[in-house]
């Protein structure tokens, strides 16, 4: 009862203090407007993604400065002493502070929510109960943090120093300021030890992706445990008077407070694909299922689906982020590499096998030992060889090697470390006998450069063209002698543009058609002299299963029925049999790694396998 009385009065006192009012209610709104306006550019989906960081920032601020510093200030001012004369214990004082802090959090949350929904049209993917639980758990955990610092600090100055150190670390290294998938890998690893990371990533998974909260129970558990530790510490080390000091030994005990984070950090770091959840939500707001820069390739880790579709005997395992090309010499549709689902580790795993499809059956062409994902293939018809460029190998290392499939392995033809990248667009200009390389990315860096390989060396073109992107689809239109590029992925962008490269310049030829797509399939149907696009994901996270054709003038929808929606699959045109072949990839709802094979005869799709 006393707890509630003090808490309610504390809330009233805050309402009477202008500075406190500003920091409690207006300041969080400033952050919302900054994040939603400057970073999200007012895009509702992105605002939903940034909402978590804004709320987390507010929760952190109230824990550290509202609760932590206020507690020290109460003690330093001597206003605790009067309470001490009443029949109240430390528990009452602490709980009332905790409660007041929480009560003040709720209207702020309401204000943030109101602005986000009314002004920025944020979609409410998160349920009310989930939101309340998250805010409650978060407030509790950071209250523990603030109280621990308040307990350990003997003076106001000391508390400020501790606060600032912890505050800035949490602010910049845990996704509160910069989206986690944008951070360098080393910092991502570090971020896994920070409570704000757990709160931000859980917020983002639930607000941007409508994931169930239960999926993030370990994060929630750790936050609750740390909150309890903080509260226990604060009770143990509670001081009514500023003259009372605590020993260095007692301060060291507060190290116990970080134990839950240590355990959680180690556990997260040793998980197969620790950043998958971050990427999932990031991708939900970015183009499509691919993760943002940093962990894009790992995003569609179908945790929900160890059920890759049934393995077909004597056929490549279901996979995604593999590459495909039509080998005109072997007369086979080749697929190479990618991620498969490993039942043993319950995670994805890169593979290095090359399979050929001749229209009737699969044949293992080679097990190259070079395990890569997002390494594009092109067929060099002049030298009659299948080429592969760059890509991401185990441990995420990326190179700039051009390789040729020879004698069952990938022989390095040209090593250009300065071109190191993955998920670039690669075509073979058969008329001029050149490989054309465009875009892609290396870790966080996206490219928009165009290079040509003439058989001896890479030459830059210095031509202005499409914007920075990876995951665009490109094919060579032999009838019109141009490389056609469609869409691609760039964080927070929606790319649905069509470009053509004639060897001298890029030309934006269309901005309409299928709309924004990342990881679509593109194949050139040389018989009908048209470029065919299938699938992909738009900037809202929607996966497509439609089929479009580009004749050099306009895009036309040519089929709406076909293979299930997917991205990150292999697609090529089998000119001998006049079929466009599609193999594998991932779909969502449910997320599933695919192992099916489809063929398109120009009007209809037919499932050939399984």
């Amino acid at each position, binding site marked *: 009862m006393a707890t509630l009385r003090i808490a309610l009065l504390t809330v009233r006192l805050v309402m009477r203090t202008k500075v406190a009012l500003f920091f409690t209610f207006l300041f969080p709104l400033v952050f919302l407007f900054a994040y939603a306006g400057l970073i999200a550019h007012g895009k509702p989906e992105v605002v939903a993604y940034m909402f978590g960081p804004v709320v987390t920032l507010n929760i952190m601020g109230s824990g550290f400065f509202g609760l932590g510093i206020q507690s020290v200030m109460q003690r330093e001012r001597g*206003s605790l*002493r*009067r309470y001490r*004369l009443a029949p109240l*214990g430390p528990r009452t004082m602490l709980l009332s502070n905790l409660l007041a802090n929480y009560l003040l959090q709720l209207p702020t949350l309401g204000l943030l929510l109101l602005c986000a929904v009314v002004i920025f049209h944020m979609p409410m993917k998160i349920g009310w109960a989930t939101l309340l639980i998250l805010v409650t758990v978060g407030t509790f955990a950071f209250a523990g943090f603030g109280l621990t610092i308040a307990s350990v600090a003997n003076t106001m100055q000391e508390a400020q120093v501790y606060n600032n150190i912890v505050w800035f670390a949490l602010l910049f290294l845990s996704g509160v300021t910069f989206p986690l998938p944008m951070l360098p890998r080393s910092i991502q690893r570090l971020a896994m030890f920070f409570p704000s990371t757990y709160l931000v990533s859980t917020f983002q998974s639930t607000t941007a992706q409508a994931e169930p909260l239960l999926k993030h129970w370990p994060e929630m558990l750790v936050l609750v445990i740390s909150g309890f530790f903080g509260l226990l510490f604060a009770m143990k080390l509670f001081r009514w008077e500023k003259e009372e000091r605590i020993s260095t030994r007692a301060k060291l005990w507060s190290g116990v407070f970080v134990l839950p984070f240590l355990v959680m950090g180690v556990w997260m770091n040793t998980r197969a694909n620790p950043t998958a959840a971050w990427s999932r939500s990031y991708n939900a707001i970015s183009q499509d299922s691919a993760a943002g820069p940093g962990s894009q390739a790992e995003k569609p880790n179908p945790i929900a689906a160890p059920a890759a579709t049934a393995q077909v005997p004597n056929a490549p395992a279901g996979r995604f982020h593999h590459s495909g090309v039509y080998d005109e010499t072997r007369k086979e549709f080749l697929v190479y590499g990618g991620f498969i689902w490993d039942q043993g580790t319950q995670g994805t795993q890169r593979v290095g096998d090359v399979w050929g499809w001749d229209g009737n059956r699969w044949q293992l062409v080679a097990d190259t030992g070079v395990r890569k994902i997002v390494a594009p293939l092109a067929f060099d018809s002049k030298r009659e060889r299948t080429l592969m460029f760059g890509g991401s190998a185990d441990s995420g290392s990326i190179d700039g090697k051009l390789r040729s499939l020879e004698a069952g392995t990938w022989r390095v033809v040209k090593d250009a470390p300065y071109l190191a990248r993955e998920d670039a667009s690669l075509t073979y200009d058969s008329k001029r006998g050149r490989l054309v390389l465009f875009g892609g990315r290396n870790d966080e860096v996206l490219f928009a450069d165009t290079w040509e390989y003439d058989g001896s060396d890479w030459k830059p073109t210095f031509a202005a063209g499409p914007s920075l992107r990876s995951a665009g689809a490109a094919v060579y239109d032999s009838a019109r002698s141009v490389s056609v590029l469609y869409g691609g992925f760039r964080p927070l962008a929606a790319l649905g543009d069509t470009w053509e490269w004639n060897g001298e310049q890029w030309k934006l030829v269309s901005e309409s058609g299928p709309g924004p797509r990342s990881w679509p399939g593109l194949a050139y149907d040389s018989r009908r002299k048209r470029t065919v696009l299938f699938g992909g994901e738009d900037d809202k996270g929607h996966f497509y299963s439609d089929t479009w054709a580009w004749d050099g003038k306009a895009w036309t929808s040519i089929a709406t029925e076909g293979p299930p929606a997917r991205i990150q699959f292999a697609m090529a045109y089998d000119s001998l049999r006049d079929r466009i072949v599609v193999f594998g990839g991932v779909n969502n709802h449910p997320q599933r790694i695919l192992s099916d094979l489809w063929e398109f005869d120009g009007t209809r799709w037919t499932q050939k396998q399984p």
Partner: protein
Amino acid sequence: MTQTMEKTVLVSVQNLHKHYGDLAAVSGLSFDIFQGEVFGLLGPNGAGKTTTIEIIEGLRQPDSGSVRVCGLDPAQESMALKERIGAQLQSTVLPDKMRVDEALRLFAGFYRHSASVETLLEQFGLAEKRHTFFEKLSGGQKQRLALALALVNNPELVLLDEPTVGLDPQLRRDIYALIERFRGEGRTVLLTTHYIEEAERLCDRVAIVDRGQLVALGTPRELIAHSGQGTRLELRLAKPVGLERLRVIDGVIDCREAEGAYFLRAQPPAVTIAALVRFLESDDNALLDLHIARPSLEDVFVEMTGRRMEH
């Protein structure tokens, strides 16, 4: 002293010791406080008064010695004790934006039994200031609020630590009136002070403490009567007289001369004055002027400690 024997002991302090590091704040203090009396702890700053009162309130733990307050051990039963005592700190700080009536209602809510907030506001002259923020109160108003807060649980024992320190004489008299009202209500009061006037005027009994030790204990009258100070007589005579002749007059303890005036200390004074008159008549001298000053607690303090009380 004898008449107090039958009274109920409300506070009993026996052989109390408390150290802060090397500093002995209280060393071997013993006294009893009886129900219904106003008891003063008089001493200079640093005498150990606040430490003693805080041990009685249960805010500090003694190093050794025994303390019983209202039949309870403050160190072990502090929650139960706090229900029964009311205390005012040397300086009471409340949140700036807390209103007077809010503070009283808040604190009243902490106790099982509480006094009427309205009555307290009236009694302590705070009714008009009921909606005023703590930060806007004057020093005297803050002190009245602190006293009102001490009464909020209708306590049997009221502990006041330097209740008038820093207040001007007018405000001090206001506070005295309030403390006298406590006595009228039958409450037991323990107050610490370093103002002699306060102790003499308010207290039924006074314990003089210095350097953590009890120097003297009794009613102000007893303390003065039992001190060897004697009454001070200041006289001017028609013609000079040798000091050695004055010294032998009945009851004269000491005698000095300065600027034509004679200063005598006498005990008992009535005997001395009668003998002095007879001596002057026989010596054909005359009394031009006579001032009689009774000894004060200050004199007692100086006698006991060899030091003056700091103001």
